[in-house]
């Protein structure tokens, strides 16, 4: 058995056991955000482009799935697929608009586009505005698996997460991923080698948008709710924080980062420290940027390379 396979089996086993130790809905939330951060990191970590508007895709997935569950009576997996497709379509359009610009310009443009999306959802009658979309049924998977049970729900989320992980992992280890990395390292060189750089970036953007929407769709099913939080620009900031804390450009980093940030928020919001949540998040940002840029996983990899 190869090392990769062994790690994978350990990971799957952990995912299977986890809900017997921790509260399954919390775990499902962690996995949704981990998937979101994974998708985001495909762009930042492997193509080197910072999107400051990824909330638009997370939210789109959630709203479209929620709408489908409330209004069409389709089964859950179709609703999730529809949400994901909507996110991909939005990603295709926004990607076309933004991809021509680089660095900070790209970040600003994605931010503005996401803001436009935010206001559309705020105004659109079907979203419920500030109240959000409430009471979305979890429905039945394939028409016969009842998802109202938290444990069942968790395992479905775990499978979706594994699927997302497989997509990202496949993408970055494929020739496509190699080209992305080449673009990140030296864009002019990639161009001179004859690659249509913008096309590669655009495809990466669309994949990332689709997976973000998948995360949003899944989250909506778990919490039976879609709200403006998921399209707000703070969410775009949060996913950057998760990726940064965990380790940009590593496969495990976003997962570790998302787990940590979600746990932290969960802990802070119900404790004595509730008042300090924004201040603490701010400090985490500053510290990470100033002296912890490799993130937890990046630092660990460095440590391992040095000592083992």
């Amino acid at each position, binding site marked *: 058995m190869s090392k990769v396979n062994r790690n994978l089996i350990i990971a*799957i086993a952990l*995912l299977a056991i986890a809900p017997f130790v921790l509260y399954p809905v919390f775990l499902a939330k962690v996995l949704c955000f981990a998937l979101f951060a994974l998708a985001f990191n495909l762009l930042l970590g492997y193509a080197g482009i910072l999107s400051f508007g990824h909330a638009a895709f997370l939210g789109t997935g959630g709203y479209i799935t929620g709408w489908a569950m409330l209004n069409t009576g389709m089964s859950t997996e179709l609703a999730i697929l529809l949400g994901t497709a909507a996110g991909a379509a939005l990603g295709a359009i926004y990607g076309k608009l933004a991809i021509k610009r680089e660095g900070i310009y790209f970040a600003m443009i994605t931010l503005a586009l996401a803001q436009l999306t935010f206001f559309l959802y705020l105004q659109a009658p079907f979203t419920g505005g*500030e109240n959000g979309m*409430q009471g979305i049924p979890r429905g039945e998977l394939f028409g016969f698996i*009842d998802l109202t*049970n938290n*444990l069942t729900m968790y395992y479905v989320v775990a499978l979706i997460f594994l699927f997302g992980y497989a997509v990202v992992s496949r993408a970055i280890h494929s020739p496509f991923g190699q080209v992305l990395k080449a673009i990140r390292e030296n864009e002019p060189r990639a161009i001179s080698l004859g690659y249509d750089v913008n096309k590669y970036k655009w495809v990466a953007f669309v994949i990332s948008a689709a997976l973000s929407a998948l995360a949003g769709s899944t989250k909506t099913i778990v919490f039976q*709710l879609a709200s403006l939080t998921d399209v707000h620009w703070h969410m775009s900031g949060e996913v950057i924080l998760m990726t940064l804390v965990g380790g940009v450009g590593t496969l495990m980093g976003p997962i570790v980062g998302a787990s940590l940030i979600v746990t932290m928020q969960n802990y802070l919001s119900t404790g004595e420290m*509730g*008042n300090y949540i924004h201040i603490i998040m701010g400090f985490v940002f500053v510290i990470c940027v100033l002296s912890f840029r490799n993130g937890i996983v990046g630092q660990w990899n460095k440590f391992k390379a040095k000592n083992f």
Partner: protein
Amino acid sequence: MKKMLLASLVAAGLSSGAAVAAPAIDGKVKIGVIGDMGGVYADICGPGCVTATEMAIEDFGGKALGKPIEVVSADSQLKPDVASSIVRKWVENEGVDTLGGLVASSVTGAIASVASQNKNIMLISGSASNGFTTKQCSPYIAHWTYNVAALANGTVKTLVSEGKKKWFFITADYNFGHALEGVSTKVIESNGGEVVGGVRAPLSTTDFSSYVLQAQSSGADVVALANAGNDTVNALNAAAEFGLTEMMDIAGLLVFTQNAQAMDPDVAAGMKLTTGFYWDMDDQTREWSKRFKERHGGIPSMAHAGAYSATMHYLAAVEATGTDDPDKVMSWMKSNKPNDFFSRNAYLRADGRMVHDMLLVKIKDKASRKSGDDIYEILNTIPGDTAFNPMLPECEFKY
């Protein structure tokens, strides 16, 4: 191997049994207070609602059914999703019986869809929506302090009957604002007034001057502010600046004491509004408010006072029925009248509406204020049955 593991993961999911929704009837009372700890409603029902609930528990003796009463608190961050996930964890995993605080209708609505399914009692003190006793009603909701209808029936009806017939609305463009405008419009029209115009301003607008200008040219007698918090304060400031206050009456439909304190006294003086509680009403309210201020640092809002009162009545019900079974507790709460410094002539109606006397007050001018906390002059008491709309026949409990 990989496939097998995945298959077993699926199998584990499939075999994990049917849904169970049951409250924790374990003879141990645990109250979860959820409020806005750092956002725009933090002063209205945030840490203060936690303090008020804790005070109630202490005044009750700290114990119920022979065991210490536990309190947990959380920050909803004003996000429906955050709130719903906290509450889900509390009620499914941590044995929380009852939820208190509860500010911002969007958040409370999201919580209600979790809590009501699970039969957890909600003591709503901060939120305004009429929905909790109509569309979203549940046998486990006690909507305590006030609601949109009471605000409209208080302030709007008074002004219309004073002959202020033409109204212009500056409405916060979201559900709460729309609801407040809708209910108020009904009150205006059924009392012989008319709505001559209105604008819907996005939530958290900083500059209202443009809307004030539109109000100015409308020829209305009253400009109603169907918004809350900072929006109300900002709109009022703009109205004063552009001389609107000299031409027309301004009616703040939802003003908490904290908002009133944030207004420039020169600008806000004379404004009439409806509140469920004022600290300086009589000795009883002053006594409690003094204790609250010592602990919290500021005077209580009506949401704070309501949170205390609701908790007291709930604990009395638990002690009297000898159980934390939500059905029995709620039925005791509805058949016994609450009576304390907050709940005057009060009773909890079958639909979950706590009907009690509301106050019509006027904001004092600078000269007549004895201290920074001395902000309202009480004009009259609005009897509960006048303030709150009658129970709707269509409220059918879904759960």
